[in-house]
């Protein structure tokens, strides 16, 4: 025991040394270093998040489609407030007193130390007046935000809108806090990450009077915000505007693509809405108004509506038939005002023989019914079911019945029936025969295709056998290129050589006896096809697909006009006008009457009862 007596000094020494070290440290903190004293007097650290400008969106020609306008939120830190003139504040903010009291109560309940938002999106004018008087309102401060502005009032569906983030979004990405804004639809949503930039943060020292005294640690902890990247989208805003104007007062959709690149030149879903409605404080209110509108302006028909394609589907049948060798351009079928086999009747308007070109130009149902039958009953397939499955493979290679992979997030698949579908849902176990599904040959029946897929189909025809995945954005920021998948050719499995004769047929559509003769344009070789989508609830839908010029095509499009009657009644002339406008910048005088008629057409009457 006592051998270790001297250790008491070690232990005691250790304790004393610790005490001395502490006292030295106190001296350093309290007497020597002025930093802490300074920090304390200034010690309300305020963290201000700097919201960067959101990226701008331009059209393909450099016209500004969307930009930012500054707006301001008013926040309060309850503990820092003192008595203030509530009437004055209400007047400056243009709100009612009960509203203000309610917000202040909520803020206090949430936290005395943390800031809460009192009013969002104060306009610049209000902000200017408010700033002058801010010193009267201790504990209140503003935070800058940005709102979107749409100078051209068009392309609402394409551009999309920006709104407050949902709790789901916040949990998926912790970049967001409650009260932040993010793209909810369209380009704003698909390219949200690029457009939103990066939030910055600044730390300020604020004294007991809530006045900012300077940066905390000279901004060492600050992070500069990064503005969002600007986007150049593929739209041609002049064309878009024209499309929206000519489709006014009608329901339907138009999608126009540049076949050589897959870039979407225009996309309209009608009726549309003023994108400026979904900005700012009134967004919530306007949104519910738009949602309850029976014409469904918010619903993007171009991407989401699934229509039967009607006669436009016939070219696909022709191509498959040619590829499989069950028909040649010379193969002849008879149309006896239709096709009749036993008890089965398919109606048509002609009483003559047709070969392929003529059948397309005059849209003969009987011809294509028989082409379809020949494909499915081709001896090499063994049975009709196998034949149908082969047919199905061909059809889906045209981009039907699947998601194309565009940079829109709400693309619909569409629907192409499979043999399993027929067995289970339609014929319920009874083995079906070709005649029972003949309506597929003329684009009627259990088919659902979106206007986007139709335009893409027109692109495939224009390119004679391939397409580029349609996309909305050409350029991101300064240097970045878009997803490489948009630069890859996607092939429909039809050999190039078979396209020419089909295109002949499509060209003859605009010649005498062709179904859209009256819409031809002098000096431009258009290829197109009318379609009439049957509508059991009312007037049929008018459908048209086209591309022009035939050689080196610049534009391929699809036009749907709900309740427009026959394809040549509304969809064809509208398509031709759009093409003429795009290629020549004007409409020729002899066709002005068509333009006028289309502008004036109003098809928004409710569906006729069945």
């Amino acid at each position, binding site marked *: *025991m006592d051998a270790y007596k001297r250790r008491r000094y070690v*232990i005691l020494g250790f304790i004393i040394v610790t*005490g001395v070290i502490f*006292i030295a440290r*106190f*001296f350093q*903190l309290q007497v020597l270093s002025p930093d*802490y004293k300074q920090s304390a007097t200034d010690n309300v650290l305020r963290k201000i998040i700097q919201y960067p400008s959101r990226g701008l969106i331009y059209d393909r020609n450099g016209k500004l489609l969307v930009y930012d306008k500054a707006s301001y939120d008013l926040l309060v830190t309850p503990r820092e407030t003192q008595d203030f003139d509530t009437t004055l504040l209400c007047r400056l903010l243009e709100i009612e007193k009960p509203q203000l009291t309610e917000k202040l109560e909520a803020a206090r309940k949430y936290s005395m*130390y943390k800031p809460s938002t009192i009013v969002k999106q104060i306009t610049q004018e209000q902000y200017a007046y408010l700033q002058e008087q801010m010193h009267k309102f201790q504990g209140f401060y503003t935070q800058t935000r940005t709102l979107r502005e749409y100078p051209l009032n068009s392309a609402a569906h394409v551009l999309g809108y920006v709104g407050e983030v949902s709790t789901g979004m916040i949990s998926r990405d912790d970049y967001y806090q409650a009260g932040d804004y993010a793209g909810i639809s369209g380009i704003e949503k698909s390219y949200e990450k690029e457009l939103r930039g990066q939030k910055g943060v600044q730390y300020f020292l604020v004294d007991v009077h809530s006045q900012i005294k300077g940066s905390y640690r000279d901004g060492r902890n600050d992070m500069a915000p990064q503005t969002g990247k600007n986007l150049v989208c593929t739209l041609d805003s002049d064309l878009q505007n024209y499309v929206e104007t000519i489709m006014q007062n009608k329901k339907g959709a138009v999608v126009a693509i540049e076949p050589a690149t897959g870039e979407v030149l225009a996309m309209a879903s009608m009726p549309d809405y003023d994108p400026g409605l979904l900005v700012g404080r009134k967004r919530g209110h306007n949104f519910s108004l738009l949602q309850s509108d029976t014409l469904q302006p918010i619903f993007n028909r171009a991407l989401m509506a699934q229509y039967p394609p009607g006669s436009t589907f016939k070219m696909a049948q022709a191509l498959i038939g040619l590829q499989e060798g069950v028909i040649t351009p010379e193969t002849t079928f008879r149309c006896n005002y239709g096709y009749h086999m036993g008890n089965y009747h398919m109606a048509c308007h002609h009483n003559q023989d047709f070969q392929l070109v003529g059948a397309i130009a005059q849209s003969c149902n009987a011809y294509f019914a028989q082409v379809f039958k020949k494909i499915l009953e081709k001896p090499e397939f063994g049975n009709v079911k196998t034949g149908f499955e082969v047919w199905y493979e061909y059809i889906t290679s045209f981009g039907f019945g699947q998601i194309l992979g565009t940079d829109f997030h709400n693309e619909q698949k569409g629907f192409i029936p499979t043999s399993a579908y027929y067995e289970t849902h339609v014929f319920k176990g009874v083995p079906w025969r070709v005649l029972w599904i003949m309506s597929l040959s003329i684009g009627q029946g259990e088919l659902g295709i979106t206007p986007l897929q139709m335009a893409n189909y027109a692109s495939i025809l224009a390119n004679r056998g391939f397409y580029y995945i349609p996309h909305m954005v050409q350029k991101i920021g300064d240097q970045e290129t878009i997803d490489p998948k948009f630069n890859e050719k996607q092939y429909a499995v039809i050999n190039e050589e078979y396209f020419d004769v089909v295109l002949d047929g499509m060209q003859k559509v605009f010649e005498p006896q062709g179904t859209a003769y009256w819409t031809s344009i002098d000096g431009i070789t258009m290829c197109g096809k009318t379609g009439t989508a049957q509508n059991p609830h009312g007037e049929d839908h008018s459908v048209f697909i086209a591309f022009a010029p035939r050689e080196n095509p610049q534009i391929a499009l699809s036009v749907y006009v709900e309740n427009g009657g026959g394809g040549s009644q509304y969809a064809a002339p509208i398509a031709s006008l759009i093409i003429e406008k795009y290629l020549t910048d004007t409409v020729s005088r002899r066709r002005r009457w068509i333009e006028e008629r289309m502008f004036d057409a109003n098809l928004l009457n409710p569906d006729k009862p069945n």
Partner: protein
Amino acid sequence: MPHRKSTFANLDWAIISIYLLLLFLGWINIYAAVYNEQINTIFDFSQRYGKQLVWIGAAILIAFITLILEPRFFVFFAYPIYGVFIFLLIAVLFLGVEIQGARSWFNFAGVNIQPSEFAKFATALALAKTISSYNFKMYHYRSILMILMLIGTPALLIFLENDTGSALVYMAFILVLFREGLSAIVLFIVFLVAGLFISALLVNTLVLFIALLIVTLVALYFMTPRTKDFGIVLAVLTGSMVVAWSMKYFFLPGMEDSGVFILGIAISSLLFVFRLIQKRLNRYYLLIFIFLTSLLFSFSVDYVFNNVLEPHQQARINELLGIESDPFGAGYNVNQSKIAIGSGGFLGKGFLKGTQTKFDFVPAQSTDFIFCTVGEEWGFLGTTVVTILFMLLFSRIILLAERQRSVFSRVYGYSVASVLFIHFCINIGMTIGLMPVIGIPLPFFSYGGSSLWSFTILLFIFLRLDASRLELFY
């Protein structure tokens, strides 16, 4: 009872005075920390200062009761008391309430009691009993093992409660063991390990390796009788490094520099050991062993830091060592604490005039960070006075411990001083940024019934033992 008068006459009133003074100062500062202009009476029991008054009252009562008991009582019941608290520590794991992430509290009729606080004096008693037993020798393996289990069991149980901070205070007992004969080497190793840990976090691994090598070489220089031998050692080392580096260059281009270094060391170590075996030079083995183990340890620190410690623990260490500064996240407490203390200046801002404490910038103000109020309102003067008071307390306790005739009392006395000291050290160190943020209370100062009563019992048992030091009760 014949001893009563002499007992009270023999009590060390110096310690009791310091105790009461600390209680009083602590209470004043809790009042200041929690002060609200709208509430006027000091007896408001819904406020902490009101409650602390109750706890203080109870503490004095407890002190009194402790002094009445016979010293033999503590000796006799040392192990049973220890056993009871071990049992309670186990029980709290299953029956306890979780507060602030640690399942360390019992809730009795609305009052929260923490068994881990009371386990400290129980352990001190058991330790004293063990060391003072007849056959005990500090250098026997069995004795050391017994001590380790004695101290380690409650520490482990508290650790399982997820109250790592309270478990760490059991390290204080090393000082007691040191006084009672624990080899100084153990202490040396503890410091070495701590030093290496910190260095490994602060400094690049390769640099640390090289530093260790240099230290070893210096030690070697003083150990070798002939300079020529030392020269040979250097040559072999250099040669091995060259070989290692060329191996990397030709065969393994992906190897990092620290890997090359290790390879070189490995080669040379093999050669050295071979030579040592040949020449039967045994005294160098230890040096090589220490060197290699240090290398290994430094190397593994990174792994342990990243994979064993929890994120909040990593963040606190980073903050302490200045590796990463996060003044608004992990470093917020300490930052605010330093600001509060620093802003006190020389004389402080005055009673109840501390802006930081007034505006509640410092979290846990009345408990773990109570010292901030001292710093802010009483300034350098205040902090120094409180520190000196504690120094006096520790010195006095050690002085008293040394004058004990019985080993039991001495060991117990040192335990009291060590436990109180480690709390003081970590708590105050944390508020001034010299220790990582570990939530333990400042004895007699921090708000809280459990800690106040357990420290009171801890101290007053010793006072009772000291009062009877001239009697042969054990």
